[in-house]
């Protein structure tokens, strides 16, 4: 150690010049951090808009290909709904490409070891993006999007990832999907064929919850999200229950049943804020901001 003593910081000037270097380094770090936080917020905003867009297309009565009122009949909604879902997914994907472009733009900020340094700043937007992406994927395929497919969506044309997708963000993003599916199922119930759809969603969300449960010890945020998932699941189950009771109690035509269900749903949701689904959004997204 003694052979390096002659370069020790013996004078105030020497110390000041060294600390000047630290200042530049810390400033650089803080500036980059701020930029990434802002970026993440922009990604979150756009992703939320995409989720709204998907909901909107799925509940838009006037949209073409709608099976409503067209006498497609019970259990159906089938063809109309399917094409509607595909339309929603493709519109969603178009918008999602914009988000992917945003990630491509910050790629240079996250090279090498930097990604993990700023992972906490990137994470909120990334999760929201995964939520939107997985929703579009669900509408299209009825399945949960795989890890590799999400990573692929965040890669350039050569297949090189912009940054490694953290497992945690992938799982937490998917966990948020269950809340969207709840909204989707509840608003679908009032539509023709919506009860089957609600049943599907119910089973799907129940499976998600079961799959995710084993990972809760590894990620502390997942525990919280699982609780939200449980609440969402319960809402869907209650709605499904209400329908079951009514349809067994009364020997009515499907049209009549739909009217009754419509009333149940308007009771469930009528006491929120003026905005449709407003209450649910506030409940879940509040802590993220």
């Amino acid at each position, binding site marked *: 150690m003694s052979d390096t003593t002659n370069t*020790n910081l013996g004078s105030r000037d020497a110390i000041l010049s*060294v600390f000047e270097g630290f200042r530049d380094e*810390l400033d650089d770090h*803080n500036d980059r951090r701020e930029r990434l936080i802002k970026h993440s917020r922009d990604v979150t905003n756009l992703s939320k808009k995409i989720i709204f867009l998907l909901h909107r297309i799925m509940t838009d009565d006037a949209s073409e290909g709608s099976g409503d009122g067209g006498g497609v009949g019970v259990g159906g909604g089938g063809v109309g709904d399917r094409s509607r879902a595909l339309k929603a997914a493709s519109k969603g994907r178009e918008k999602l490409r914009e988000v992917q472009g945003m990630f491509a733009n910050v790629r240079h900020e996250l090279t090498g*070891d930097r990604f*993990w340094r700023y992972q906490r700043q990137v994470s909120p937007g990334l999760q929201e993006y995964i939520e939107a992406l997985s929703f579009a994927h669900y509408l299209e395929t009825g399945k949960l999007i795989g890890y590799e497919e999400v990573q692929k969506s965040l890669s350039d044309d050569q297949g090189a990832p912009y940054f490694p997708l953290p497992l945690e963000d992938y*799982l937490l993003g998917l966990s948020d999907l269950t809340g969207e599916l709840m909204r989707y199922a509840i608003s679908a119930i009032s539509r023709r064929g919506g009860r089957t759809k609600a049943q599907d969603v119910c089973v799907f969300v129940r499976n998600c919850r079961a799959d995710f449960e084993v990972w809760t010890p590894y990620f502390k945020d997942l525990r919280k999200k699982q609780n939200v998932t449980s609440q969402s699941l319960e809402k869907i189950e209650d709605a499904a229950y209400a329908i079951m009771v009514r349809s067994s109690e009364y020997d009515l035509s499907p049209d009549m049943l739909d009217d009754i269900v419509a009333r149940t749903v308007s009771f469930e949701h009528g006491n929120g804020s003026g905005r449709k689904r407003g209450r649910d959004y506030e409940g879940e997204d509040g802590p993220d901001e």
Partner: protein
Amino acid sequence: MDVKDLEYVNDLLEQDNELREKIKDEVAELDKKTRTMSGLLNRIHSTPAEQMPALLGQVKPVLESCRTTTAAIANVVPPTQFWRWKDMWTNSLRSAVFAATMVGYLETGTLLTLPQVRDVLGIDPQWSDRYALAAEDYLHGVISLVNELSRLAVNAVTMGNFEEPIKISTFVKDIFAGFSMLNLKNDPLRRRYDSLKYDIKKIEEVVYDVSLRKLAPSRNQAS
């Protein structure tokens, strides 16, 4: 989720866990060493100046042995994942920086630079994306050094060494001037920086006491 995807996720988790366990073992080693060193360095407060080299002779082998642990950690961390795992050893590393800079001060009366500390601890700059000494951690270590020197100023006087507080005072003021140049945001480093002024005040009081009573040599004549 598909069985395939489930397995994929479980595999990834499994790999991460294995890695975490490996790192944890090595960090436990480093931790043991830094604790030994802070135990030994605690004795500076009761060691007269002439016995200091002997005490430092005990600390330095431990300090040098940190090199193997450092290399072991650097070997398990995958490339580019330095910041992902860093939290696991941050505290131990900061104590090691403290020990290195304390030994440096006691031997030469000056502050070891970051590259010098890196040398002492055997951190190869080429490992930078697996294991590195970040400016923040170096600065934390230096603040610990100042904290400890404010105690030493008091205890040196108790042992009859009246020059030490004056040396410490100049040294610490230079460091403080350095810290004042940084644009710190509201983080732990900022809070610890804010605490430095109490250390300086404490040291100044000691200097004041020994100067007034003309216990310390030389400097009095100048003022």
